[in-house]
């Protein structure tokens, strides 16, 4: 059994309560926002880790990563013949297309891509949202250090491998 | 000519000009708006003549309700923006009757009251009108209320959609 008009009173009560509750709005340009750790702001590139395996570009759902490269012969002293090595010419991410899914970062086998929490890179021209590899490299400075391991968690694969090798020898 | 005379004449001119526009404009809604001007000017005449209460009743009932109803009806009957073509009948008989009534009455009034002057009326007549309505005129007042009720009922009956029994039962299912 509900009293007719009780909902109206409830609406008034809720709004009045919200009125006297301090609001938690952050005045953004004046006050820096408190971002949660590991927020997804922009994607940074560590160029020397990239082997041009193209996994990121292929897995990208909206095809916003553009990669060009050429092969170079590297003469390794003592080796029978020169090795071939991929050299990155172009690594562009079009942030006007990117949907911040992070799949490229997940799939990168050599830890060349990282999330950076920086988000203030809006532009007046949409074409300026295409970040080349130098720009992506600059973001590396803003990438936070990886979180420490959970002291109660399982040890990492590398650690167990080292321990196993040591015990075997 | 006193100041009040001048004001009366100017407001009277506005009223007549509004009236001319009401009966001559070819745009339906504009006619209603000119009627607001004419009736408003008449209300101001009432004010100048000391009939304050009647003036505000005029504004409340005429401008606030009657004209709005008229405009409402004009819009509901799909008045176009811009002039309509077939609003008028032949002018001659209307001009004859209108001019005869208007100018004849005007000439009569000028002839009888031409130089007549009366003292400026005192304002604040609501109490006296109340006494008059509920004293001498209370019976007509009550009759009037019955008339209003009858008009209300009549308007409702007229504007309701057709009664269901007018259409045969078999076709009535389409609603």
């Amino acid at each position: 059994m509900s009293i007719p008009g009780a909902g109206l009173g409830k609406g008034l009560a809720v709004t009045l309560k919200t009125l006297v509750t301090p609001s938690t709005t952050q005045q953004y340009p004046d006050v820096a926002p408190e971002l949660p750790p590991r927020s997804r702001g922009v994607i940074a590139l560590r160029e020397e880790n990239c082997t041009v395996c193209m996994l990121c570009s292929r897995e990208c759902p909206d095809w916003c990563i553009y990669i060009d490269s050429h092969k170079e012969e590297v003469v390794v002293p003592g080796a029978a013949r020169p090795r071939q090595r991929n050299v990155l010419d172009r690594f562009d991410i079009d942030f006007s297309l990117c949907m911040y899914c992070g799949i490229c970062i997940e799939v990168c086998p050599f830890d060349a891509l990282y999330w950076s929490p920086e988000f203030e890179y809006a532009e007046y021209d949409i074409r300026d949202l295409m970040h080349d590899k130098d720009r992506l490299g600059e973001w590396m400075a803003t990438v936070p250090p990886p979180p420490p391991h959970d002291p109660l968690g399982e040890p990492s694969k590398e650690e167990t491998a080292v321990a196993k090798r040591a015990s075997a020898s | 000519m006193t100041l009040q005379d001048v004001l009366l004449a100017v407001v009277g001119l506005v009223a007549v000009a509004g009236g001319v526009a009401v009966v001559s404009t070819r745009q339906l809604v504009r006619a209603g708006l000119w009627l607001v001007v004419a009736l408003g000017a008449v209300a101001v005449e009432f004010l100048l003549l000391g009939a304050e209460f009647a003036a505000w009743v005029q504004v409340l009932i005429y401008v606030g309700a009657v004209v709005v109803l008229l405009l409402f009806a004009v819009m509901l009957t799909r008045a176009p923006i811009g002039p309509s073509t077939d609003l008028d009948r032949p002018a001659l008989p209307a001009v004859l009757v209108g001019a005869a009534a208007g100018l004849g009455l005007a000439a009569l009034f000028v002839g009888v009251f031409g130089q007549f002057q009366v003292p400026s009326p005192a304002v604040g007549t609501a109490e006296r009108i109340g006494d008059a309505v509920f004293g001498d005129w209370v019976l007509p007042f009550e009759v009037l209320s019955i008339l209003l009720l009858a008009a209300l009922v009549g308007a409702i009956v007229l504007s309701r959609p057709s009664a269901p029994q007018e259409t045969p039962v078999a076709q009535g299912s389409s609603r």
Partner: protein
Amino acid sequence: MIRPVIPLVTAALLFGLGAYGVLRRRNAVLVLMSVELMLNAVNLILVTGDTMRERVTGQVFALFVIVIAAAEVGVGLALVLRLFRLRQDINTDQVALDDEPRAATPAGEPALAGASDGEQA
């Protein structure tokens, strides 16, 4: 001091305009507007008469007239809207008083068409 002849002449002219409008206009709503003009002219004369005789009887009558005008407009507009709903037109010249509303005729047509089809088949 005021000259009552000024509002009286105004009222006379308004009345003339109203009479002209009632006879001249075809549109029912415009006719109603012209009637309002005439009623207002009468009210103006009543109120002016009050001022001349320093009484309020005329104003009482003016109030009565205003109330009756409101009732009249209510019923009049109900009639006009009813007319418009029946005929899609509120031209007073085209109101034939003796025939059935046009909306009734299409109901008969399908029956006739059906009958002629039956004869052909």
